[in-house]
């Protein structure tokens, strides 16, 4: 018997068995099929949920685009201001400070005094 004859006989047997299947087995098979279909549907719907969430996020960004761009611009501006403050001051400001130091009611050597420096660090402490 070759392979082709064997499969023909197997198909005939299976068809005969399907026609002779009992009601209980048919019901079990039906229940299993329903369960499998329900499971497949739930998986599909959860996939739709994820993509729906992405869509929701995208629409949120579209609605708040101006606010988001504004917030980013403000953050960049604040960073630039912070860096600018850390840079050396322009010569004009420095000359202003030098002029103030040279004409202040405290002498220059007061500002070089170590005790004075400490008092500035802890202005509220009494020595």
């Amino acid at each position, binding site marked *: 018997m070759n392979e082709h004859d064997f499969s023909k006989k197997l198909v005939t047997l299976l068809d005969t068995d399907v026609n002779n299947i009992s009601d209980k087995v048919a019901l079990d098979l039906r229940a299993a099929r329903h369960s499998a279909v329900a499971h497949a549907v739930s998986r599909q719907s959860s996939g739709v949920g994820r993509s729906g969430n992405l869509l929701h996020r995208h629409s949120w960004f579209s609605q708040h685009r101006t606010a988001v761009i504004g917030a980013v611009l403000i953050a960049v501006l604040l960073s630039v201001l912070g860096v600018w403050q850390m840079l050396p001051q322009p*010569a*004009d400001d*420095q*000359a*202003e*400070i*030098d*002029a*103030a*130091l*040279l*004409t*202040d*009611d*405290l*002498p*220059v*050597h*007061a*500002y*070089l*005094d170590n*005790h*004075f*420096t400490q*008092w*500035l660090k802890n*202005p*509220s402490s009494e*020595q």
Partner: protein
Amino acid sequence: MLVWSGVALAGGKDNATQWQALKPAQQAILAPLAAQWNTLPPAQRERLLAVEARYPTMAPEARQRFQARLKNWASLTKAERIKARENYKKLKKLPPAQRAAIKRRWEIKQQASEPMKPSMPSPPIPPKGAPSPS
């Protein structure tokens, strides 16, 4: 070429701030520094000129202080000048009450470090062998 022009520019600035290149009015204001002016680094001279430019707007008392302190200020090291500026800025940032308290502390410290002045003249020391007054 770029280096050469940079050196030429620096040299030009150096010459422009030499004592003899200053205007008579500038020389009068910076007179306390006349002897040492040309020995100061060009950057320091430029800075002092920027400070000197504010002189006309100063009150008479401030002008006196300015000229009295100029020589001492120019003789400080760069690090000392930076420290003085930083401390000045810190003091100015404090609330007026704390600023006044620190100034008061400084005055007290200064008074304490001054030598004691005798309230009455001390009696002359009698020569050796002279009879002691009794």
